């Protein structure tokens, strides 16, 4: 049962993260990304926490929509 609770909690933060990326919510992204965060783009670029959050927060990169499908936790 504890397992299912953890999985629900993870699904919850993944959804919060998705929303924060779309809205560019800096403080939410700050609180959800680990200090050691490693964000790999499909171009091969790798962002750390700071370089990931900055363009989302200042609007240089603006996700108008993110859909996550077929998620497993």
């Amino acid at each position: 049962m504890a397992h299912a609770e953890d999985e629900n909690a993870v699904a919850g933060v993944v959804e919060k993260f998705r929303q924060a990326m779309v809205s560019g919510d800096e403080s939410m992204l700050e609180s959800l990304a680990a200090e050691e965060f490693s964000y790999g783009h499909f171009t091969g670029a790798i962002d750390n926490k700071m370089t990931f959050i900055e363009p989302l927060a200042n609007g240089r990169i603006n996700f108008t929509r993110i859909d996550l499908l077929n998620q497993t936790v």
Partner: protein
Amino acid sequence: MKKLTVLVLFNLILFSPLFAQTSDEKEVAISAETLRKAMIDADKSALENLIADDVSYGHSGGKVEDKNSFLESVLTAKNDYKTITISDQTIKMAGKDLAIVRSKFNAEILTDGQIHKPNLNVLQVWQKQKGSWKLVARQGFILAPPAK
């Protein structure tokens, strides 16, 4: 004087940031290298040891395997890894028990009589479980072609 210079040089080399890998990072590097060899050798006990029971092993084509399925495909030579070359590997610790490993991954794989030569980027997540490093997640992916 000469001795001192040699000593200073030796220390510079030994403690240079270039070589500064923590013991955890070294252990992870060794585990990743052992896994590479075990996949080529189809070494069952090494694979059993290095792969976490809850592993999520994602191929670049989208297929995701669990431990049983991954071991079976490597051990029954359904996917016969002839060579695997890992390059540009980085290891980043996230706390004491979690490591983020990224690398390029080139291989020659014999599948159903056909040689495939994947040229991938790979993200691995290793977790220290009861004192041993285990692969808990792996995802291979093909980079998008450069934007025109």
